[in-house]
């Protein structure tokens, strides 16, 4: 490690705000880039699962109806 103390890491001889600002902004963009499609994928998968379940229930119900009529 180059720096002696943690406060030296934050300060970086006065350049700290610039360096850490640039890194935190990049981190934010990376988090958004990864999280947005992940959340979307989760929501869409959930919607498809719900739809499957609804269809299964509907198919079962119509099957029973059919059975009771005959």
């Amino acid at each position, binding site marked *: *490690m*180059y*720096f002696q103390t943690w406060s030296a*890491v934050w300060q*970086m*001889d*006065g*350049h*700290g705000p*610039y*360096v850490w*600002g*640039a*890194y935190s*902004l*990049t981190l934010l*963009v*990376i988090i*958004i*880039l*990864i999280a947005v*499609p*992940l959340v*979307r*994928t989760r929501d*869409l*998968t959930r*919607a*498809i*699962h719900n*739809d*499957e379940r609804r269809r299964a229930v509907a198919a079962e119900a119509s099957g029973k109806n059919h059975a009771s009529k005959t």
Partner: protein
Amino acid sequence: MWSIVHKMGSPPWFYRFANVAIAWLLPIVLMALVVGSIWGLLIAPPDYRQGNSYRIIFIHVPAAVVALAGYYVMATAGLMSLVWKIKMADTAMRALAPVGAALTFVALVTGSIWGKPTWGAWWVWDARITSMLILFFLYLGVMALSEAFDNKVAAAKACAVLSLVGTVNIPIIYKSVDWWYSLHQPASIKFTGESAIDASMLYPLLLMIVAFYGLFALTVLLRMRAELLITYSQSAWLRSELS
């Protein structure tokens, strides 16, 4: 070779491929980013002229490199979609433009932040920064065009044509901006002079460039997978894949 291209074009195959690739890439990319950042921020020695502010290079340069390469990848996808009418190439193009624009944005903002302690100004009309800004506009154009069409197939084709036109233009734009800059700036006050970079700075930089390429591939695959879930939400293959 052709069988791979053929397979790539099949949505079910691509969906399975994306699942596997994302599972591998996600931990590797995050690890590389963390290691590279710690290396660049804490371990590498400071630059003798710029002090510690140069540490921004470890995100600025990788973002810029990948953003530029990303435009060529997008144009290649466009060519594949126009010539071979590969469905997945359309999806890839829609996924690529926002990721490329985000990386260009990162390169621009980190460059601007870097400029403040180095040049004393947030924005300098330097040749590279200007070229980056124009690249950002090119990405925005593709995104706006893709949004403007209701018909998704037409949108993909239009974006393919635009990105190919852009690809032909990018080298001309870069060269002309270079000349423009040297025309208005005497060569002696050049800030972005090439200098040999020491190994202690080069290795973390190379690691970060690789990590950003991985990040690019990862985010594009993530977006493409989400896109597939929308487009094929009613198809049997996707339902059996998910159950």
